[in-house]
C-alpha cells in the first residue's frame, strides 16, 4: 500500500532517473563497435613492461592504420581500434608493436569486419528490436483481452509499454555513460542484453497485472476507483516478494558472471544487471501505481 499511496513520490524518483539516462543518451550517444560499424579491433598483451600509449599509437600510424586509437586495458593489455589496418600490416602487428624488440607483444585477439557485414547487422538489430516489441504487444493484448473494469484492457498494454520504455532507456543511458567515460562500445552482445531485458521486464510486469486481474475477478464486477486502489495495493503486496526475489536471484547470478566470468561478457553482465533492476523497479513502482492513476482519472472524467 505504501507504494500506491505515495505513488507520486515514486513517479518523481523514476522520472529523475529516466531523465538522467535520457540525458546521457542524448548527450553522449551510443558508440557503435566494430560489429556494427565495421573496422578492426586488436587486443595486444605485453609480457613484462607495457609501453606508453603514445608509443603504441605512433607505431600504429607507421603501419598505415586509419583512424586508430589504443586504449590501455587491465595491467598488461591494449585494446586497439581502427577503421582499417592494411592486411599486410595485420600479420606483423605483434612484431611492430614490440617496438624494435624493446617490449614483448603478442596478439591475443584480432577481429576485422567488413563494412557490409556491419551494416547488415545494424539492420538486423533494429528489426529484431521491432519484432520483440511487436511480439510483446501482441502477447499483452491477448493476455488481457478480458479485463475491462474499471480500467479498459488496452490501458494495461499501454502501461506495460511505458514501463518497457523506461526499462530500456535506463540501461541504454547507463551504457552511453559507460561509453563516454570508459570507451565502452556497443557490440552484438549489447543488442542481446537489451532484447533479453525486454523479455524479462514484460514478464515481471505481467505477473503483477495478472494478480490485479485475479483480485478484480474475485472482488466481483463493480468497483469504484477507490476500491480499485485497494485492490491494486493488495495485488502489489502479494506479488512484491516474488518479483523482488526473482530479480534478486538473477541479479546474484549476474554478479557472479561479472566478477568471476570471462572478460568478454563483463559489460554484457553489467548491462543486464542494470536492466533487470530497472525492470523490477518499474513493475512495482511504476506500472501498478499508473493503473491506479489512470483509474482515478477515468473515474473523475465519468463524474
Amino acid at each position, binding site marked *: 500500500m*505504501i507504494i500506491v499511496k505515495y505513488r507520486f513520490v515514486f513517479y518523481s524518483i523514476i522520472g529523475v532517473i529516466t531523465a538522467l539516462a535520457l540525458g546521457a543518451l542524448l548527450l553522449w550517444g551510443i558508440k557503435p563497435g566494430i*560489429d556494427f560499424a565495421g573496422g578492426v579491433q586488436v587486443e595486444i598483451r605485453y609480457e613484462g613492461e607495457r609501453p606508453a600509449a603514445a608509443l603504441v599509437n605512433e607505431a600504429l600510424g607507421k603501419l598505415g592504420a586509419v583512424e586508430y586509437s589504443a586504449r590501455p586495458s587491465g595491467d598488461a593489455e591494449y585494446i586497439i581500434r581502427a577503421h582499417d589496418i592494411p*592486411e599486410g600490416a*595485420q*600479420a606483423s602487428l605483434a612484431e611492430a608493436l614490440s617496438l624494435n624488440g624493446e617490449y614483448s607483444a603478442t*596478439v*591475443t*585477439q*584480432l*577481429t576485422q*569486419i*567488413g563494412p*557490409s*557485414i556491419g551494416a*547488415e547487422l545494424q539492420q538486423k*538489430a533494429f*528489426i*529484431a528490436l521491432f*519484432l*520483440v516489441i511487436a511480439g*510483446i504487444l501482441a502477447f499483452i493484448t491477448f*493476455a488481457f483481452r478480458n479485463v475491462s473494469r474499471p480500467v479498459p484492457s488496452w490501458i494495461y498494454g499501454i502501461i506495460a509499454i511505458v514501463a518497457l520504455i523506461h526499462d530500456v532507456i535506463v540501461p541504454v543511458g547507463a551504457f552511453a555513460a559507460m561509453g563516454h567515460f570508459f570507451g565502452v562500445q556497443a557490440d*552484438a*552482445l549489447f*543488442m*542481446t542484453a537489451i*532484447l*533479453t531485458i*525486454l*523479455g*524479462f521486464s514484460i*514478464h515481471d510486469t*505481467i*505477473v503483477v497485472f495478472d494478480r490485479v486481474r485475479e483480485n478484480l475477478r474475485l472482488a466481483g464486477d463493480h468497483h469504484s476507483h477507490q476500491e480499485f486502489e485497494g485492490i491494486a495495493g493488495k495485488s*502489489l503486496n*502479494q506479488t512484491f*516478494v*516474488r518479483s523482488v*526475489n*526473482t530479480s*534478486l*536471484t*538473477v*541479479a*546474484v*547470478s*549476474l*554478479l*557472479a*558472471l561479472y*566478477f*568471476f*566470468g*570471462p*572478460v*568478454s*561478457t563483463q559489460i*554484457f553482465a553489467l548491462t*543486464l544487471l542494470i536492466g533487470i533492476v530497472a525492470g523490477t523497479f518499474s513493475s*512495482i513502482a511504476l506500472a501498478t501505481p499508473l493503473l491506479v492513476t489512470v483509474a482515478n482519472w477515468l473515474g473523475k472524467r465519468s463524474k
Partner: protein
Amino acid sequence: MLQKRLLALVVLMVGALIGWFVYSSQSGMWRPFVLGLDLSGGTHLVYRADTSGLAGGDVRGAMEALRDTIERRVNHFGVSEPIVQTERGGLTGQGEERLIVELPGVTDTQKAIDLIGQTPVLEFKLLVVPESASSSATYVSTGLSGRYLEKAALQFAQSGSGQLSNEPLVALTFNPEGKALFAKITGENTGKELAIFLDGQVISSPVIQEAITDGNAIISGSFTPDTAKELAQNLNFGALPVPIELVSTQTIGSTLGDEALARGVSAGFWGLIFVSIFMLLWYRLPGLVATIALVLYVLAMLMVFKLIPVTLTAAGIAGLILSLGMAVDANILIFERLREELAAGKSPQDAIHTGFARAWLSIRDSNISSMITAIILFWFGTPLVKGFALVFFVGVLISMITAITASRTLLLALDFDRRHGITRFLFSSGTKFRV
C-alpha cells in the same frame, strides 16, 4: 507416502546418473563439449563470393563446389574439425553469397588466409567479337570452370604437336559432366577463341579447332617446369569456380580462449553457490528442494549440451549462468503460492498441490515471453549471439521441466505434520513485508 518417497529417491538417482554421465564422458572424451572459437582459440574467416560472372545462374551448385574445394584445401592444412559453410547475406537471404571458414586451434591467421588465397580460380570464357568495330571484344562465361576439373598434371609438349617441344604444360582432365560440357562448347564454337582465365587473368586463348570430346585440355603459356608443377598441384586440390574476397577475419589466441573458459566455469560455480545460499536462507526447507532442483537443472543442461551438441561460447556460458537465476523463478512462484495456501490454513500436501496448479499459468506465460525473445535473438545474431540464444531457449525449457517434476516430487515426499512449530518455520519463508 512410501510411493512418494520412492519417487523422490528415483528423481535423485536420475540426477546422480546424469551427473556421472556428464563427468565420465568428459574425462573419457566421448562426445566432449564442443567449444566455440572464443573458448578454444582459432580463426574465423568470412569470404564474399563473386557470382556475377556465372552463366545460367547455377549459383547454388557453384557455391557447393566452392565449399567442397576450400574444405579439401583446409583439411590438407591439418586442422582438426574445420567448419566450412556457405551463407547468404542480407536480411532474408537475398544478398551476397558468402563462405564461412572456421579453423579451431589455428592462430596463424595470415598463413590460413594465404593458403586459401592460393587456390586458383579457373574459368573458361568465349571471346565474343562484336559486329561493329566501335565496341570492344568481351568475354562471355561458358559455365565451364574449375568445379568440373578432375585432375591436372604436368606434361611436356611432344614435338610436332604445334608447340615447342619439351615446353612445360599443364594438362587438365575434366570429370564426366565437364567432359560433356567441354565437348558441347567446343562443338558449337569452332573457330572462336576460348580463353582460359586463371585467377582473373587470361593465361591462354587458343582457337577451337574442333569439338573436343575426350575431356582433356592443355594450358600452355610461359610456364617453367616448376611453375607448371606448382599450378598442377594447386589445381589438384581444387580450383575455385568463382573468385572470392576476404571480408572479415577474427583470430582468438588460445590462451585467451582457455582463460575465458576457466573464468566461465568459475562464474558458473559461484553463481550456483550464490543462488543456492539465497534460496536456502529465504525459503529454508523448500529452498533446499529448489537448490537440489537447480543442481539437477545444471546437470541436465550439460547433458543436453553434449547430446545435441551445442557449441559453447562465452556468451553461451553467460546464458547458462543467467538461466540459473531464472530457473529458480518457477520455484519462487510456486513457493510464494505455497506460503499463501499454508497461511490460508491448508495442510502441506494440499498446499503443495494447489500451489503448483495455480502457479503453473504464471510460469507458462513468463517463459513464453522469454522463449519468443530467444527465438528472435537466434535469428538476428552473430554466431556468438546464436550461442546465447540457444542456451537461453533450452534453459527456459529445461528449467520448467525440472521445477515442475523434480521440485514437486521432492516437496511431496517431505510430508511433515503441520502443527509442529519447527515445520511451520521450515515451510514458511522470509519475513513479512507490507508495501
